[in-house]
């Protein structure tokens, strides 16, 4: 199915749900003496609340919704749209204060009625969500703490906003209006139950055990997991999953990692993880036999969804992980289509899977081009960063316009490569990208 059509469909669904409260308000009676600005303010408040509710749906990891894009893009939308939702919710009281400055008295939480206290509380929770999300690293919040905080604050923001509406009372006078609010609240609660209870229970019923933990080049570790029931959930090479290790799946201690093993391996799965943060720096301490849980697979970054006479992979650092899974799988299929891997690293020593890539060059119709940021003395290969000229040097003009491109690496590299491919003249729909710093 056309990706644009699917995109347009989901944008349409989003608009219908976010704007639906306006329709219901329209159908109800209008409180007397309202001017345009007051009505606008009320409208913005309602739509903003609906958008808050939809944020739960966006991040619920529904595979069908995420399939055409990949979850990194969904989360990107979640972040971008949250700023707009916050802006219109913030505009709701501001407009009321400008229309009638006496409304400012509602901010006095000591004397103000409960409906105003809940409104202020909801807004404070939202401000806290935005601040802790944008400046998480500056605030030195650990990822798990931030996630727990994010979930609790989001629930507080929505619950308080609902109490605010109930307190104001203009929009719950008729039974069908009450029904609507109950329906919307129930919908949000069902989503929460799904995310926090149903999914963890399903993960709990399918435990994995750590089979091996192996050190790789470039401060990375490969963790091999074997399901206790013997059958791992099938995945497509290039996809990723959320892993929970040393914890039960009900907490917030889960992290997204790419599969690195072949999708044709039927008894175990492997993930390769770079030491980048608090959690990943302890991967090496994991012991074989420990329990782990997998929520996945997710992601659209896979060659198996696309027909092409050949592929070009451009990876930076640990961005090699999903590419490795694709290469290993292609090798298991004895696929002999022409493949090019452009692999950027700081030094040759750090090039994860270097030796296995050499071996894969024998098994596949694969050319590996290492690009070193800090080449050692005597290095005769490519150095610096991946740019348009470098791409053109390694693939001829005829092939360049037939193959499909997969790019995965740290953000600055991704920006540079996307620009380079644009310069070479590769249309956007033939370039698949995966950004691994999701949060």
């Amino acid at each position, binding site marked *: 199915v056309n990706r644009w059509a699917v995109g347009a469909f989901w944008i349409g669904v989003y*608009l219908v749900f976010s704007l639906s409260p306006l329709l219901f308000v329209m159908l109800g009676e209008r409180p007397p003496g309202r001017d345009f600005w007051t009505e606008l303010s009320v409208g913005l408040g309602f739509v903003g609340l609906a958008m808050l509710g939809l944020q739960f749906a966006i991040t619920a990891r529904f595979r069908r919704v995420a399939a055409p894009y990949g979850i990194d*893009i969904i989360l990107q939308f979640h972040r*971008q749209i949250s700023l707009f939702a916050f802006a219109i919710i913030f505009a709701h009281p501001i407009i009321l204060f400008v229309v009638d400055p006496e409304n400012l008295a509602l901010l006095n939480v000591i004397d103000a009625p409960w409906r105003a206290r809940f409104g202020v509380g909801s807004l404070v929770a939202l401000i806290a969500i935005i601040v802790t999300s944008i400046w998480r690293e500056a605030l030195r919040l650990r990822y798990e703490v931030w996630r727990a905080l994010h979930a609790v604050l989001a629930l507080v923001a929505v619950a308080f906003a609902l109490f605010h509406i109930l307190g104001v009372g203009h929009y719950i006078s008729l039974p069908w209006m009450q029904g609507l609010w109950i329906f919307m609240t129930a919908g949000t609660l069902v989503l929460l139950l799904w995310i926090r209870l149903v999914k963890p229970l399903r993960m709990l019923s399918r435990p994995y055990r750590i089979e091996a933990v192996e050190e790789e080049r470039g401060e990375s570790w490969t963790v091999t997991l074997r399901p206790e029931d013997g059958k791992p959930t099938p995945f497509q090479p290039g996809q990723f999953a959320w892993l929970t290790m040393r914890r039960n799946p009900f907490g917030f201690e889960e992290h997204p990692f790419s599969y690195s093993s072949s999708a044709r391996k039927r008894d175990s799965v492997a993930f390769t993880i770079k030491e980048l943060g608090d959690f990943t720096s302890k991967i090496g301490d994991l012991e074989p036999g420990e329990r782990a849980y997998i929520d996945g697979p997710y992601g659209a970054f896979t060659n198996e969804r696309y027909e092409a006479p050949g592929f070009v992979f451009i990876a930076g650092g640990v961005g090699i992980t999903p590419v490795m899974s694709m290469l290993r799988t292609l090798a298991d299929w004895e696929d002999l289509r022409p493949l090019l891997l452009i692999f950027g690293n700081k030094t040759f020593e750090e090039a994860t899977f270097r030796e296995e890539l050499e071996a894969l060059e024998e098994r596949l119709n694969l050319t590996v081009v290492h690009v070193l940021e800090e080449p050692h003395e005597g290095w005769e290969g490519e150095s610096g960063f991946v740019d348009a000229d470098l791409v053109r040097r390694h693939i001829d003009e005829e092939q360049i316009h037939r193959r499909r491109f997969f790019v995965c690496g740290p953000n600055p590299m991704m920006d540079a490569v996307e620009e380079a491919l*644009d310069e070479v003249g590769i249309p956007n729909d033939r370039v698949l990208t995966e950004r691994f710093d999701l949060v």
Partner: protein
Amino acid sequence: MKRQDSTLMAALLVSATILAVTVLFAVVRVM
């Protein structure tokens, strides 16, 4: 257009539509 830009486009499109419809809502309500 980069893939990241397309989500920004989608977010902007959604935001602009929501704002326009909400303004329209307010206009219709006071008519």
